[in-house]
């Protein structure tokens, strides 16, 4: 049945093709580009070239194109927490917070208020009717290498019922081929990289954070407490990090085992010391109650979890409620390297269907 769909168009090839596919399926499609971040050099305006691309693609497709300014919300829900987390020695994933608060909350709410039936994006993931009573679940994309289900794990079944991910069944090559066949100007546009509000031209992460928080030098100590080196900014060190610690060339590889921002100390050690059998997570969300029960009560052997956007999923032995405050302890079948606190941990049923996820907190 034809629906009215608001497509979030970033100006990239994936969302361009998503819009084209929905149009071709007969839906009434309107494109929207979100103005999220002005950037310092931009006198408060948008990343104009991406908006240009989205608008030109919409014109080619014969659909209307809007721009919504969600800059205040982005600053409040994405940028400020990103800075705060780094100041606290965490390793945040701002894309996840943007999806949580902007694309699938602010935008979805507005879309529904405007009378749209659904919001679509160009994410590589699939919405499948595999939940209870045929309800929606989020599943991995056809293109495993491009799968983005990890960054969409916070979507509830209620939200998924209003979300379309048209390109989830295509590989990236197929997406580009379709864009080229349609003559879309974004067909060969490079994939977006890294954090959208931090640019290399602007000096990268260090400059961005340095303009907002005081970056402090830290001591590197080994597991015996002996000082073995130093880094310029403790706020930029990630648990599990090996490069950039200035410890190369002195024998065995050493990793950041833990980061203590308050005392400005980073403990380093061999990979063996990085392995942890249990990972605690907080602020866990579930796609639906059945998913929650599946993870917490049934403890079936199909349960896996992924701890970084491009990492491989790992088998989970059991998930237990660690305290009354909602923290869950995830016990692994084989102890992985410690996950940097602030990263998200996402539960999968059989490495395919998302069940829920939370933020690593220890």
């Amino acid at each position: 049945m034809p629906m009215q769909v608001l497509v979030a168009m970033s100006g990239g090839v994936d969302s361009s093709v998503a819009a084209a596919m929905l149009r071709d399926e007969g839906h009434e499609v309107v494109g929207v580009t979100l103005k999220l971040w002005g950037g310092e050099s931009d006198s408060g305006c948008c990343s104009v070239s991406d908006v240009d691309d989205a608008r030109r693609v919409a014109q080619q497709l014969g659909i209307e194109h809007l721009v919504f300014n969600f800059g205040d919300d982005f600053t409040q829900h994405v940028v400020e927490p990103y800075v705060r987390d780094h100041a606290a020695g965490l390793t945040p994933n701002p894309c996840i917070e943007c999806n949580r608060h902007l694309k699938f909350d602010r935008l979805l709410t507005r879309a529904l208020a405007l009378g749209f039936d659904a919001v679509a994006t160009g994410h590589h993931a699939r919405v499948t009717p595999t939940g209870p009573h045929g309800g929606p679940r989020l599943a991995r994309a056809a293109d495993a290498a491009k799968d983005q289900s990890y960054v969409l794990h916070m979507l509830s079944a209620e939200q998924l019922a209003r979300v379309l991910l048209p390109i989830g069944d295509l590989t990236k090559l197929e997406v580009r081929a379709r864009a080229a066949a349609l003559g879309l100007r974004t067909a060969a546009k490079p994939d977006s990289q890294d954090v959208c509000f931090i640019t290399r031209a602007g000096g990268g992460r260090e400059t961005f954070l340095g303009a907002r928080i005081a970056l402090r030098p830290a001591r590197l100590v080994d597991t015996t407490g002996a000082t073995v080196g130093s880094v310029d900014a403790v706020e930029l060190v990630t648990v599990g990090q090996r490069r950039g610690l200035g410890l190369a060339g002195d024998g065995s590889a050493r990793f950041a085992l833990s980061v203590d921002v308050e005392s400005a100390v980073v403990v380093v050690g061999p990979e063996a010391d990085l392995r942890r059998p249990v990972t605690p997570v907080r602020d866990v969300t579930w796609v639906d109650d059945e998913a929650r029960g599946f993870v917490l009560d049934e403890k079936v052997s199909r349960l896996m979890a992924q701890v970084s956007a491009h990492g491989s999923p790992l088998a989970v032995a059991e998930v237990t409620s660690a305290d009354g405050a909602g923290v869950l302890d995830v016990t692994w079948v084989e102890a992985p390297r410690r996950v940097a606190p602030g990263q998200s941990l996402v539960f999968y049923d059989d490495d395919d269907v998302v069940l829920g996820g939370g933020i690593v907190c220890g």
Partner: protein
Amino acid sequence: MSPAEPASHPPVTYLDHAATTPMRPEAVEAMLPMLTERYANPSGAHRMARDANRAIDEARDELAGLLGCAPGDVVFTSGGTESDNLAVFGARRAGVGPTYETVVCAATEHHAVLDPVLALAGRTVGVHPSGRLDLDELVAVLDAEAAAFAAGEGPGVRLVSVMLVNNEVGTVQPLAEIAAIVRQHASDAVLHTDAVQGFCALDLAAVADPADLVTISAHKFGGPKGLGVLVARPSVVLAPRQVGGSQERARRPGTPDVAGIVATVVAARLTADERSGEVERLGRLRERLVSGLLAAVDDLTETGIGGGDARAERVDRVPGIAHLGIGGVESEALLFLLEREGVFASAASSCSSGAMEASHVLTAMGVDDDRAKGALRLSLGWASTDADVDRALAVIPPAVEQLRRFAL
């Protein structure tokens, strides 16, 4: 299939005349011979060039009459923005030395004035909640600059710029009072007024007479886009912003837009001829529009209108602009719902991408953030009808209602 044509569009109700108004058909018609037959470059030496030049001469004479200035005071430019820039960057009082450098403007100016003033590290003067300039603050600023100048510590005021009619909320500034203050407190400065939104409603020959420089823009009164005028009276010396020719007495070099100039004057003549009737007619339309919305929508206010008698306070507004603040809605969302019903309006402030930005005008007027987020500008013009008002009154209340149902 032609692109971007959904199955059915509702009929157009255009309520964005302050952004631009359709060209008068007579003005379009006047352009055509200048593009097809009398196409010569007016700067040339031959008969065809003289013919084109004559068209400009006649247009300039007539426009000068409508604006109450000498023909030689009329400088044709590419639009309001260029005229404003030319004034702010380049104008000084004739007969005074080049010392004076400080520029001063209202905090509510259009960016075409505000940005040049800020680029020159100039000063802005605040406004009252109605949008009217704070005259006491203007005096204080001018006196402070004069004192600094006398003490050898400041360059003195070169130019004061106050827009005659605000483009977002329609407030009319008391230009004669402002001119008197400038004469008394900064006698070596020139006074510029951006009258882009003023021409339709006000007889600039009278109202803008106290200003040394006056900006107008053709597409706001039924002329073409890309054609502006800066009136620069003999009290002013104007330094050009571009060089490369002697056109417009070298104040604005470049081959003139003959067709645009001819069309502009036709539109200006029609607008001036019909002005008093139109002011009354549009005033009635706006009255019906605003009182209808005030009655139909809760938590809706006319921006800058206080608790007193709204009708009396509206005397200081042009009839073509109604600016509303609507609680519990966001302009972006409301405009989209209106567009879907064929009603085209604006929130008055947007950037090149089309995204909405907070309005510096509303901020300067002290409008609170929530109200500013729900800003809606409905503007009327020569083509507006009672049917437009009917349609707006039928469409806006349910759209507001729909959005409020989803408000968190």
